[in-house]
C-alpha cells in the first residue's frame, strides 16, 4: 500500500537523522536520567516509598522526556525549508504523520528500555516478574504518546512563542496513557501480569482513535 510505503520512507528518514544527530542519546536520555535522580532525591532515600511510586515516576520521566523528542522531530523540518519541500512532494499528509509517529515511537522505545533498567536499579522496580505484560504496556502506551506528539509537534517548532504551548497541550491529552501505563506497570511489577488485560485494551483503543484521527486532521495542521 502506498500509504505504508510512504510512511516507512518517512520513518526511515527520521530515524536516520536521529541516529546521526544522536540527539536522543545526547539530550533526551540525560534529561530522563536527571528527572529520575530528581525524583529520587525528592522522595527518597527510603527505599519503600520509591519502590511504591516507581511506576508513576517512570512514566512521568518518559512523558516529560518525550516532549523533547517531539520538538526535535519537527525542528529538523524547519531548517532549509524542508517542510515546504515535503509539502510539495506527492507524500500523503497522513503518511507524514504516521512516519513521524513511528520514528519517535522507536526512539522512545529505546529510551524506555534504558530507563527501565535505570529505574529497576534506582528504585527497585522489579522487571522480571511479568516481562511480557510490562513490555506490552510500554509498547502500546508509547504508540499513543507518539500519535499525540506527532500530531501537535508541528506546533512545537520555532518561533519561540509556540514552544511553551506544546507540553500544555500534550500532557492533559495523554492522561489515559499515563493512567493506563502506570497501572499496567504496577501490576506487572507485582507479578500480576494476567490482570493488565483491560488496561492494555484501553491503550489499544487510545492508539487506534488517535492514530486514525491524526491521519485525518494532520494535513490541516501543516498545510499553509
Amino acid at each position, binding site marked *: 500500500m502506498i500509504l505504508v510505503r510512504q510512511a516507512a520512507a518517512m520513518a526511515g528518514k527520521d530515524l536516520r537523522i536521529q541516529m546521526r544527530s544522536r540527539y536522543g542519546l545526547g539530550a533526551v536520555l540525560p534529561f530522563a536520567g536527571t528527572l529520575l535522580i530528581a525524583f529520587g532525591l525528592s522522595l527518597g532515600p527510603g527505599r519503600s516509598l520509591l519502590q511504591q511510586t516507581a511506576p508513576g515516576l517512570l512514566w512521568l520521566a518518559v512523558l516529560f522526556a518525550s516532549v523533547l523528542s517531539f520538538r526535535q522531530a519537527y525542528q529538523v523540518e524547519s531548517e532549509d525549508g524542508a517542510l515546504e519541500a515535503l509539502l510539495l512532494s506527492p507524500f500523503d499528509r497522513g503518511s507524514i504523520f504516521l512516519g513521524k509517529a513511528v520514528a519517535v515511537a522507536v526512539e522512545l522505545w529505546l529510551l524506555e528500555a534504558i530507563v527501565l533498567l535505570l529505574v529497576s536499579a534506582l528504585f527497585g522496580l522489579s522487571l522480571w516478574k511479568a516481562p511480557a505484560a510490562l513490555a506490552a504496556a510500554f509498547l502500546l502506551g508509547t504508540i499513543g504518546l507518539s500519535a499525540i506528539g506527532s*500530531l501537535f509537534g508541528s506546533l512545537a517548532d520555532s518561533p519561540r512563542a509556540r514552544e511553551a504551548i506544546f507540553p500544555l497541550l500534550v500532557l492533559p491529552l495523554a492522561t*489515559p496513557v499515563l*493512567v493506563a501505563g502506570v497501572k499496567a506497570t504496577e501490576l506487572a511489577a507485582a507479578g500480576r501480569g494476567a490482570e493488565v488485560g483491560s488496561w492494555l485494551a*484501553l491503550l489499544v483503543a*487510545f492508539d487506534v482513535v488517535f492514530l486514525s484521527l491524526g491521519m485525518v486532521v494532520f494535513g490541516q495542521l501543516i*498545510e499553509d
Partner: protein
Amino acid sequence: MSVAERAMSKLTARRGERTLAVLAGAGVVASAVLSLFVSPPDAEQGSLIRLMYVHVPSAWVAYLSFGVVFVASLAYLKTRRTRWDRLAAASAEVGVLFTALTIVLGSIWAKPVWGTWWTWDPRLTTTAVMLLIYVGYLAVRRIPDSPARRARWAAVVGIVGFADVPIVHLSVRWWRSLHQAPARLIGLPDIAPVMGAALGIGFLAFTLVYLYLMALRLRVGRLEERLVAEALSPRIGQPAESLLDGGMPAPTARPKDAEEVSTGG
C-alpha cells in the same frame, strides 16, 4: 446561507441578544427563587443540597460548550467560514469559565459533605483534565501567527480534545475503582418532584445564560474581525468586505521569514 447559519445570525443579532438577556435574567431569578426558597432541604445534607442547583447545571453547560466547540471546529475545517471559528472560540471561552465554576462549586460542596476540598473522583478528575485541555485550546488561539493558521490549529485541538474526554473519563474511572475507599459517590440523591423542578429550571437558566454570553462574545468576535480586515485592507489593496468571513489571504511566508517580506514595503 444554510439553515444553521441563518439561525445563528438571528440569535446573535442585536435584538436576539437583548431577548436572550431578558430571558436569561428571568431564568436566573426563577432558578434562584426555586433553589433557595421553594425547594426543601435534603434529608441528609440539609441546605447544602442547594449547591446542586448551581453545580450540576454548570457542569452541563461546560460539557455543552465543548460539544459546540467540537461541532464548530469540524464545520470550520470543512467550510473555512470564519463564523464557525468565531463560534468555537466563543464557546471555548465560555466553556472554560463554566468548567472552572463547576470545579469550584464542587469543591465548596465537597468540603462540608466529604470533609475534603478535592478527591480523585472520576468525574472531578476528568473535569479537571478537560479544563486543562481547553485552556490549551485558548493558548493555541493566542499564538502569534496568521488568523487563518491559528484557526486551523485551534480547530484540530478542539476536535482531538473532545475525542479524548470520554477516554480520559474511562481511564480515570477504572483507575479510581481499583483503590476502593468507599467514599460516597456524588450521585443524584433521590429527588423529590420540587427539587427535580428546581434542577430543571436551573438547567434551563444556565443554558440561557450560556446563549447570552455566546451572543455577546460572538458580537465582539465579529467586531474584532472587522477591525483586522479594515486595518489590513489598505495595506494589501483589497476592500475590507472581501476580507471578512474566510476571505483573508493566506500568508505567503512562514513567520520567521516575515521580517524579510515586510521590510520590502
